[in-house]
């Protein structure tokens, strides 16, 4: 069965869209060793979670330079707190929360916080125009990525973290984003549907003035 290619039940593998091999890492052990001065253990922690921290920053719409700064601050913060992490198994959530807090602070400082009012139909800023261009010239992959970049902040932040390797579990996401655990699945679905609608096979038709987010409701029912 093709979907068992990585030894995972099909639904799990396909649903998450990433491999789970990294879950074998003993985070508690690595933390203890790093706290004791073991640099290799630290590097292993960085290798495991750098993508997550990066995803948080990028998901908040920060550019590469700002995201690099968020990442640096977050890792310096962990280095200072190696001895005070109380729940090693939740280190991912700790890093994500710390990175997210820095992002919100930076966005506020730069007065770039995008309010929902600046977004029409779930897409923000100039990205909507770029999207039409991409669809016409560069094909669906580029269009999908542009559509993703243009997503409203709530969708983008959540999806970007779900795309990280490894992503956080729903319980941790619920803490980090301060949203009920039960709403994560539906929000994820709504955001993906929005992207799917915008990059469907007939781009210009689906790009037209359809009835906003309502398009997804009809399909799911």
């Amino acid at each position: 069965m093709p979907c068992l290619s990585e030894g995972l039940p099909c639904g799990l593998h396909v649903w998450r869209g990433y491999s789970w091999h990294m879950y074998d890492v003993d985070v508690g052990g690595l933390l203890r060793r790093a706290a004791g001065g073991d640099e290799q253990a630290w590097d292993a922690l960085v290798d495991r979670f750098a993508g997550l921290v990066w995803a948080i920053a990028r998901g908040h719409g920060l550019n590469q330079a700002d995201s690099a700064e968020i990442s640096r601050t977050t890792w310096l913060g962990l280095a200072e707190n190696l001895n005070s992490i109380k729940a090693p198994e939740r280190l991912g959530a700790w890093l994500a929360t710390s990175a997210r807090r820095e992002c919100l602070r930076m966005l506020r400082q730069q007065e770039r916080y995008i309010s929902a009012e600046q977004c029409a139909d779930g897409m923000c800023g100039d990205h909507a125009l770029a999207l039409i261009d991409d669809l016409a010239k560069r094909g669906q992959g580029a269009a999908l990525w542009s559509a993703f970049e243009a997503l409203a902040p709530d969708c983008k932040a959540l999806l970007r973290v779900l795309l990280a390797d490894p992503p956080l579990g729903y319980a941790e996401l619920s803490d980090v984003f301060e949203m009920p655990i039960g709403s994560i699945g539906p929000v994820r679905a709504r955001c993906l549907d929005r992207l799917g609608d915008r990059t469907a096979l007939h781009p210009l038709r689906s790009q037209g003035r359809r009835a906003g987010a309502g398009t997804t409701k009809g399909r799911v029912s």
Partner: protein
Amino acid sequence: MNADDEAAAKASRIDGAAVHLEWPDAAEAAREATFRRLHSLALENDPVPPDVLASARSSFGLRSIDDELAVLVYDSMIDHELLANVRSGGRTVRQVTFEAPDLVLEMEVSGARYLVGQVVPSQAAVVELRHRGGTIQMETDELGCFHVPVVPDGPVSFRCRPTGSAARSVATSWITL
């Protein structure tokens, strides 16, 4: 949706035991296909840059092993309501407070990145500002006041060593001001 997905969707619909693994309908299959395409696009378009990874690794060497950690207990930037009240000459002033068991560091940073700080309780101390490019060392006055003309970009940490006291030096957590 590729052929594998279709097969998977069909198979899990037939196999009633795998309740939570099945695709309920075509919409969900399409949604998951979108997710998988996004996942490979994220790997391709937005990987962690090598210098970001290197910087994360090197932060290990910047731990302040022997210092007492002063944690951020107040940041006006976090508090919307207070922010509105803290304005001088139309520019926002950011206030932050770091607290260690025996010492508090209070600071104000203007929009022009000019920083004024004070060690509480008032005492003379040597303050070291650590940043990406190195360190800036300064001495406070006898009341514990110090200032930095232009705070460097990026994360910074302050290390404070009271003069004339055997107390451990204190280092603040890293913050981007």
